[in-house]
């Protein structure tokens, strides 16, 4: 019986789909364990299940040889299992010291021991090697500093098992180095650490042991000494080269051109999308792809650079302008941004086109149903009828409704953000068929996807983003998964096209 945390046979299900299936993982004290895998491989879900955020459907946890069950994150924390979030969850109005001790104040009866709180906070921050004033407010602190506050809070709970969920993604290289120093210190003090990441460089810089997940299953556990980056990339991707390649298409006129476009989360974007062309936008989560899509669609405003549509310079002030210009976005967060869940298929699919579908502002039920039925048939939508609420549909069918909503508006440019996330295999190939058909008909398609086979399968060209910039543009017919992965993670040997 070793010290640390052992998870056995963990299975986590969302809506009947197992996102993590029967994974065993052992976090030994005095060791940094890296959990790697492609986007959607189930890394974060596993980490959150260990920290009590999700309750696994099957499986058991053992802490220092004793069986445990966490009903919520607070119980995990009380047992010494701390989760450090990518975007730290803090109280912006309260001070650093109070953020550290909120929920378990140092107290004397009903009273907070402020001087002890401040002193103890200072100690905790110092032991992390962090120069933060415990009395300063948290609002206005950088992400890195707020992470440090979260670290100190975990430390105040005497955490012995630390889970870092993609914590390095929003940090600068210098901040990452500082975080690593803290991690090493924790390890040397005998803590067990789990880091969830897809930055392999980091894994090899800090971890002792690596577990690779693919499609919710554990495919390998290696020590850093016995492995190398190439092997891990291959294990993560884990497929033979995709058999299906896209059919070559004639690309038409340039439809969308950006020159030096900058905005929140992305910089210096030079991107061209032609009519009848599918451009894949690959990269890791947090690389700035969604942010770019949101700016192109007018949700946020670019701060610099130019955007041309059919050779005309345009400014997309709002999604409404985008709609008028013929730009549409199928958003990543389908449930909150794409759909009105309690409303019907007919209501949802005609939402953007309604004003044009209904002359004079009167709802024309016949037109609405005719148009909805047309797309339902074309997309082979599985539903009782078009008055069914979209909340009752499967993920794939919901996505078809979102697609129908935008295609009705006959857009020139279709931006898709993770179009097949949470979509079952059958519906996925349907969505792929639809996307291909649209390009064939001459639509310009910009597709953000973390699913590499999907990117390779559909794209004529592939742009890879890292840290807010486009770092590689690859030919869709010649690119390989490894090439994309190398460019996205910033590895040596990336073939920059």
């Amino acid at each position, binding site marked *: 019986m070793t010290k640390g945390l052992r998870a056995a046979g963990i299975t986590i299900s969302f809506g009947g789909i197992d996102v993590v299936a029967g994974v065993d993982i052992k976090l030994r004290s005095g060791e940094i364990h890296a959990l790697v895998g492609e986007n959607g491989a189930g890394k974060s879900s596993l980490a959150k299940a260990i920290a009590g955020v999700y309750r696994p459907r099957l499986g058991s946890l053992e802490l220092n040889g004793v069986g445990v069950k966490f009903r*919520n*994150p*607070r119980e995990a*924390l*009380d047992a010494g299992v701390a989760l450090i979030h990518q975007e730290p*969850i*803090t*109280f*912006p*109005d*309260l001070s650093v010291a*109070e953020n550290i001790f*909120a*929920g*378990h*104040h140092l*107290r004397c009866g*009903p*009273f*907070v021991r*402020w001087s002890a709180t401040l002193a103890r906070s200072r100690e905790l921050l110092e032991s992390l090697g962090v120069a933060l004033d415990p009395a300063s407010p948290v*609002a*206005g602190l950088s992400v890195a500093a707020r992470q440090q506050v979260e670290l100190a809070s975990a430390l105040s709970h005497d955490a012995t098992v630390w889970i870092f969920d993609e914590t390095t993604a929003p940090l600068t290289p210098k901040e990452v180095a500082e975080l690593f120093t803290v991690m090493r210190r924790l390890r040397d003090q005998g803590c067990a650490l789990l880091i969830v990441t897809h930055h392999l460089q980091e894994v090899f810089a800090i971890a002792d042991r690596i577990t690779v997940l693919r499609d919710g299953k554990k495919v390998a556990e290696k020590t850093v000494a016995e492995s190398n980056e190439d092997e891990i990339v291959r294990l993560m991707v884990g497929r033979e080269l995709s058999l299906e390649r896209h059919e070559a298409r004639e690309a038409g006129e340039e439809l969308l051109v950006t020159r030096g476009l900058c905005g929140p989360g992305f910089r210096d974007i030079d991107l061209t999308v032609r009519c009848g062309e599918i451009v894949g936008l690959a990269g890791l989560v947090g690389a700035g792809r969604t942010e770019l899509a949101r700016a192109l669609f007018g949700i946020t405003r670019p701060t610099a650079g130019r955007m041309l549509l059919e050779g005309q310079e345009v400014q997309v002030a709002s999604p409404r302008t985008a709609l008028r210009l013929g730009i549409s976005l199928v958003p990543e967060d389908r449930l909150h941004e794409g759909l009105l869940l309690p409303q019907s298929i007919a209501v949802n699919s005609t939402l953007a086109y309604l004003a044009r579908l209904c002359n004079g502002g009167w709802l024309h039920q016949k037109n609405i149903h005719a148009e909805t039925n047309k797309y339902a048939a074309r997309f082979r939508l599985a539903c009782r009828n078009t008055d069914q609420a979209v909340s009752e549909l499967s993920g794939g069918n919901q996505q078809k409704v979102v697609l129908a909503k935008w295609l009705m508006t006959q857009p020139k440019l279709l931006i898709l953000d993770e179009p097949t996330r949470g979509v079952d295999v059958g519906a996925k190939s349907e969505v792929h068929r639809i996307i291909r058909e649209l390009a064939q008909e001459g639509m310009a398609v910009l597709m953000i996807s973390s699913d590499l086979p999907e990117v390779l399968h559909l794209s004529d060209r592939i742009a890879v983003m890292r840290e807010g910039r486009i770092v590689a543009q690859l030919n869709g017919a010649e690119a390989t998964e490894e090439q994309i992965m190398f460019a996205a993670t910033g590895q040596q040997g990336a073939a920059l096209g």
Partner: protein
Amino acid sequence: MGKREGIAFGFLVLLSGVAGLKEPRLFQPQSIESVLLWMPLITVVAMGQLLVILTGGIDLSIGSILGFSGIGVGLVLKANPHLPLPIVFLAGLAIGLALGAFNAAVIVWGKISPLIVTIGTLAAFRGLTFILSKGDQIDSSMIPDSLTVLAHSGITIAHVTLSWLLILALTIALITFATLGFTTFGRNVFALGSNADAARLRGISSGSVQFAVYAICGALAGLAGVMYASRFGFVNPGSAGSSFELTVIAAVAIGGTKLTGGSGSVLGVLLGCLLLSCINVFLSLLGIDANYQMLTYGLVILIAILTDAAARRGKA
């Protein structure tokens, strides 16, 4: 004193300056006393409302709770004119606590927005007040002099009398200050209003914090009912505390309390209460009749939410 409290302070200085120039009588002890006569009621109720707003909620029913408690205590006094004063105050507190707990129960267990619940009880409690009083006013004959004298006598410092009611109100403000600043409950109030999700992650029970703040807010409004009887010497079931929620919310808002919760201070709210008391007195001193009161409260609330919005924009 932070930036947010500064707004109330700035207004206070500005107002005194402008009014003082036009009417030098303003700085005489009498005017200061009449300002201080207004303070206790607003202050006590504002402390409860501050707690509620800090958690990100609102309580519109406070005026009706005040009225109900005033009538209730008046009826108790009518039956037992020689009841010791501490019991009288405790009775008001208890009546308010019961009504506040009703609000709290419906909000927490019924999972209904505080706005709708307290709009409903704003009316319902007022109706109950009429039922309780059978529509009759509690006259000065029913309120013992030992109670009314508290509003006018007290400790005199430099020709200005600080009434016992004011001292009571300031004591409550002090207790609120200590509770908010130095107890785990007080800190949980801030935490809940600052980020409810984070509070949940840290194991802070939002239900019990919410329950407590609405119950306390009711209790303080109940206490204010007794103070109302003391200050005015009568309690009318229709007018006692009517529209008082506007005054109090205006005081809390202009005192720099973040209206979406999580930030605010007792000092700021005290300044806000002082500002509104001054407005009341200055209006009458300047010969502007009481008809401008409602408009002033509205403008104060509007100014407060506009500065709140500007502060949010500045940060974003």
